[in-house]
């Protein structure tokens, strides 16, 4: 997927004015924030569980090569074929190659954000493979030719009416308005796709090193059909998704659905191990697992490694007041919200996303709910450090930072400057004691009036003995 995050600021303006989007986003709070809150308390030892989950992820990341090799060995021993992909293009090439090898013309696909990184669907279409998205949200987006705006609820930016219109237009059937009717219609369209697909493509929430299994966590049942009906199954995921044991997965699964969708448990947890054996009645004859790096390995051992703990629950974006107001598309790549504001610059190049590390108030709502305790604001701040060090900040901002630091280290001059500022602002505040415009800070006063100060500084008054 093309990285357009450089356009973030313009997108913010567009998204804030998009009434349909704003209406759709207004439901985030009840659906995800209150949803999580209602079930997370079921974990009586929540903080210990989060610590344990972070510990599992750190243990893997501190010795990633070891766990990946163990995974490969175990998966191979059970009949799967493991492919290593350095880039998204590599993934596309490998999948197209598998399709060609098995004479695949149609593929059914369950949700995979990693495949979005690669732009897999377009690449397969070009290779002559028809791909059908079968996750309801992803199917809607495929019809609408849109990208996901959320990693768990990809179509959260659309309301029901838009989907009714879309189905009526694309399916050429009478317009339905009820959610149950719309779902039934999608099911009827998708059923033949499941049955006819020669290849199934899925993501992978976890890779289990001890068993070589790919684990997927889903709700709709499409994941089961995609990974068991076709004779070829290709699972694509990031190299960081490996965990040592099924026991470790069980710890992470206590947190993932609760953090993601406010569910104590998802409808399906599929543990996909090896290809169909002789004695098996079902399952894919060929099971390929593609592990994508795409910049992840260079984070290992560095100051941003904690980002790779991420288990893609989406809680950070659900709780982010920035995401809640602009939605996911504004972020300009696959991953939105706080985790996306870190991953996009890290995987796509810091110079291509000048705004993302800065578009946060550091409110900390994200890290407070992160199931694997990623210190998201700290990582965003580290990206800001890199921006400053690499001269990526504007000259005006760099000058202001230096000037403020210098002033703060020279108390006598600082005192004069603040006294002058207090007086000037009081004057500018006029009779209503409000500043309607502030030179150099129009971003502030475009939407707000700055309450004027008293005109004297605290330190000045304190020294004069005013004690009221």
């Amino acid at each position, binding site marked *: 997927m093309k990285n357009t995050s450089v356009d973030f600021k313009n997108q*913010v303006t567009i998204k804030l004015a998009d009434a349909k989007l704003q209406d759709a986003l207004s439901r985030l709070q009840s659906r995800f924030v209150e949803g999580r809150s209602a079930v997370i308390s079921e974990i009586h030892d929540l903080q210990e569980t989060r610590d344990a989950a972070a510990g599992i992820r750190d243990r893997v990341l501190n010795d990633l090569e070891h766990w990946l090799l163990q995974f490969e060995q175990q998966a191979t021993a059970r009949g799967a074929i493991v492919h290593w992909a350095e880039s998204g293009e590599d993934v596309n090439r490998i999948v197209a190659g598998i399709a060609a090898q098995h004479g695949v013309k149609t593929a059914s696909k369950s949700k995979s954000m990693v495949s979005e990184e690669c732009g897999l669907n377009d690449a397969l279409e070009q290779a002559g493979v028809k791909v059908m998205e079968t996750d309801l949200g992803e199917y809607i987006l495929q019809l609408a030719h849109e990208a996901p705006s959320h990693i768990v609820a990809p179509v959260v930016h659309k309301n029901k009416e838009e989907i009714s219109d879309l189905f009526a237009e694309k399916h050429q059937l009478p317009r339905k308005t009820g959610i149950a009717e719309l779902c039934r219609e999608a099911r009827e369209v998708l059923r033949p796709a499941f049955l006819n697909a020669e290849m199934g493509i899925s993501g992978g929430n976890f890779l289990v090193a001890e068993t070589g299994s790919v684990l997927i966590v889903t709700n709709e049942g499409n994941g089961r059909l995609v990974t068991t009906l076709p004779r070829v199954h290709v699972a694509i995921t990031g190299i960081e998704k490996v965990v040592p044991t099924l026991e470790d997965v069980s710890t992470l699964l206590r947190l993932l659905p609760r953090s993601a969708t406010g569910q104590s448990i998802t409808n399906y947890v599929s543990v996909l191990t090896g290809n169909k054996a002789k004695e098996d009645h079902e399952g894919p004859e060929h099971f390929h697992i593609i592990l994508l790096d795409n910049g992840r390995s260079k984070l290992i051992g560095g100051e941003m490694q904690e980002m790779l703990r991420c288990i893609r629950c989406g809680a950070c974006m659900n709780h982010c007041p920035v995401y809640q*107001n602009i939605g996911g598309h504004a972020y300009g790549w696959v991953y939105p919200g706080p985790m996306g504001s870190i991953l996009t610059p890290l995987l796509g190049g810091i110079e291509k996303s000048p705004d993302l590390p800065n578009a946060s108030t550091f409110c*900390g709502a994200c890290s407070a709910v992160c199931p694997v305790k990623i210190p998201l604001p700290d990582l965003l701040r580290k990206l800001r450090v*890199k921006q*400053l060090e690499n001269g990526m900040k504007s000259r005006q901002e760099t000058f202001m*930072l230096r000037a403020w*630091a210098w002033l*703060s280290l020279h108390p006598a001059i600082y005192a004069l400057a603040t006294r002058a500022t207090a007086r000037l602002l009081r004057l500018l505040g006029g009779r209503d004691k409000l500043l309607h415009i502030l030179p150099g800070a129009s971003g502030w006063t475009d939407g707000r009036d*700055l309450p004027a100060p008293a005109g004297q500084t605290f330190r000045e008054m*304190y020294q004069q003995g005013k004690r009221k």
Partner: protein
Amino acid sequence: MQMRVGFFVTCLVDTMRPRIGFAAIRLLETAGCEVVVPARQTCCGQPGFNSGDRKSARTMALKFLAEFEAFDYVVLPSGSCAGMIRVHYPDLFRDDPALHQRFAALAQRTHELTDFLVNVARLGKAPGNFRGTLTYHDSCSGLRELDVYKQPRALLATMPGVTLNEMVESTTCCGFGGTFSVKYGELSTRMADNKCKHITEAHANTIVGGDLGCLLNIEGRLRRKGDHRTRVLHVAEVLADVEPDATG
């Protein structure tokens, strides 16, 4: 023995609303503390730190250490500046064990105002006679870095004239975020709008909080939208009931 408290007024209170500083001193003195205001204090360094300027932040942290290390306690009328000192100063000196230890010790003795009054000074009753219906905004850093939530409410509950009407989502960011509010003014304003809506729906005549940055942001949006009635006060002003406009 009387506690000797170094008071850091914060750059924003110093320039924009000095009466908050005097209210805080009154509260500290009511709680039996000796309050000292080091004369050469400036800014804690948070604006630069959050913009990626670690080097300047370290220099400013050292200045702060020199001025405040000698006190029994350091108190600030701001959760975000107190968070800078408690959480981020020690982190800035991870590579220097001796300094790190000194900053960690300083952090232990540094408190946001209401946290200090409740958990250290054990102030039993707020001295002010404020009367009114309030709603409280929980500023992000105080809440999530320092666990300041119950403390201001406990103090407000000691005031017979105060009724607290909680707003929904009181812990959601108001959109200030320091330089964020200038760089992403439009987005910041929308976040402030959401906050103002919740304030209005709480049917209070006063919105109270513990961080002046957030309060200026909220007041700025309320006024621009034509609300000139809702009062916007720092929790210290309410607790000490320093008459607005007595000192400006």
